[in-house]
């Protein structure tokens, strides 16, 4: 049985997934959830595939009404989540009754939150991804009254004995700091910056309000390119740290144009790109040098943590009968 969410207050929310990985070869940015860890976690907490469409909520408050019983999870930046007026935990599956309003308010410590729904959301795809592309104008636009169709409904899950939270899934949540440390590996054009490259590691940079999904602009002491030879356009990775002007450092994120002609000083690690996705204008960041081997190991450790979460969630849901016949039918308050 399908259900739906009716958007009441869209804020800056979009329907997205992990990205358009076949895009770059055609000159389209990969896009997709900027905090990939939080997005994957939200989908896992609702027993979806990690790449399923979900809602990315940036900075502003968001509200939607469920037209059927749903199971949701909200991850990402610290915020206040209420369902039908009750305050509910983040980073846990949450039952929503038909007619109740889901409200996300006061995103503070970070910038982006992720709301997934068990059974996922139906969204149009381009090259195998629903991620919006602002350049070519692709993507599902959310406005007041937009109806998002979900493929499954879930009868409410209730803790029968005490009014305790049902799930304690024990995920180590990411730290949300107003002064995060960002790991980078040496970029392919590091040498072009000579000794000034060291400024990257000794300066505290401030996130500019002109930052977005294409890139973060950071104010502070800037490394300077020592050579002036012309650079032919070439593919630049997500995470590339460039110095395109004398005003700001530019760190490219998932909405970046695929090719550019600026030298790449450093590249932010996959793990730290999630951290940067949560940096708010006015926050400060410092950079720390790491190696590709260490960065890979860190990324894999985070993925293993998500795999453990997946195992726990699957076990709990199997016991509750979400997606199978219940082994603990007492926990299912069938229509109460």
């Amino acid at each position, binding site marked *: 049985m399908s259900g739906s969410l009716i958007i009441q207050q869209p804020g800056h929310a979009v329907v997205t997934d992990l990205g358009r990985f076949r895009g770059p*070869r*055609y000159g389209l940015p990969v896009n997709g959830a900027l905090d990939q860890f939080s997005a994957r976690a939200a989908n896992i907490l609702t027993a979806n595939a990690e790449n399923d469409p979900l809602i990315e909520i940036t900075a502003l408050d968001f509200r939607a009404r469920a037209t059927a019983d749903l199971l949701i999870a909200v991850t990402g930046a610290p915020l206040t989540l209420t369902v039908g007026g009750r305050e509910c935990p983040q980073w846990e599956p949450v039952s929503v009754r038909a007619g109740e309003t889901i409200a996300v308010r006061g995103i503070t410590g970070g910038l982006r939150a992720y709301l997934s729904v068990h059974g996922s959301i139906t969204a149009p795809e381009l090259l195998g991804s629903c991620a919006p592309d602002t*350049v*070519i104008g692709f993507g599902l636009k959310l406005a007041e009254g937009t109806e998002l169709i979900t493929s499954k409904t879930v009868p409410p899950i209730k803790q029968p004995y005490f009014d305790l939270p049902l799930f304690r899934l024990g995920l180590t949540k990411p730290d949300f700091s107003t002064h995060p440390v960002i790991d980078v590996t040496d970029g*392919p054009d590091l040498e072009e910056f000579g000794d000034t490259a060291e400024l990257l590691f000794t300066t505290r940079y401030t996130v500019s309000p002109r930052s977005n999904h294409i890139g973060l602009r950071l104010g502070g002491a800037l490394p300077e390119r020592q050579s002036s030879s012309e650079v032919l356009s070439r593919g630049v990775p997500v995470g590339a740290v460039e110095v395109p002007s004398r005003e700001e450092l530019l760190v490219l994120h998932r909405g970046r144009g695929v090719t550019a002609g600026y030298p790449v000083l450093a590249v932010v690690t996959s793990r730290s790109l999630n951290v940067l996705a949560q940096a708010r204008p006015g926050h400060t960041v410092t950079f720390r040098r790491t190696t590709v081997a260490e960065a890979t190991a860190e990324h*894999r450790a985070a993925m293993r943590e998500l795999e453990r979460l997946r195992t726990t969630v699957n076990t709990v849901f199997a016991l509750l009968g979400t997606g199978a016949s219940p082994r603990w039918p007492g926990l299912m308050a069938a229509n109460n």
Partner: protein
Amino acid sequence: MAATSTPTPVRIFESGDAALRVVADSPDREVNWNTVHSLAAWLDAAGADGVHGAVPTYDSLLVEFDPHVTSARQVRAFVLLGMRQLDYLGAPARTPRQFDIPVVYGGEYGPDLERVAEHEQLPVEEIIALHTAKSYVIRCLGAPAGSPMMDGPDFPLPVPRLKDPRLSVPAGAVSVAGRQAVIAPAVAPGGWCVIGQTPLTVLNPAKEPLVPYQPGDLLRFHQIPAEEFSLLAGRELEATQ
């Protein structure tokens, strides 16, 4: 890709934990271009687990991958294997296709045509004649959205970019900058000089690939009068051979 010479050796640079940059740096730019595009085609056909894809441009190739499934070390070895295959088998030959682009030059369609003519110290007609004179090789697909990047027309001087880039350039805009030429498949901001516009639709988001041409294909411009713009508007760009 035209039948080609033996690829030149490449250098491979780390570019974070999820990408590598591969650079061909022989003195011959055609050989470099052939090498990175042949290698991209090989990687694409090989379809290794965890390799998202390759973005070839002029002398360089960005290979993107999922560091959970594979690693920079493994992808580097894979790229070197690809190079040995290309050495042994030669680059795959592909017959280039030809695309003809009708363009309305100047006026509202090409607001920078006169500026470019002034800069080049040539009459406007001569700029149009030079722009329509040759067949362009599509070197790579660039931003935004599969723009065909080409070596520019034989103008005497490189064309400077606009001091104040436009916030919005229409789809179909035909532009030049430096020693390069391009068509805009989609509306986007732009700092290149717009000298004309084609009425044809270049980008079709409902199709894969989104744009009908590939690097190595040939493209030619021809002038049409402004009255014909609306007659051709919305027609999809297709190869003529």
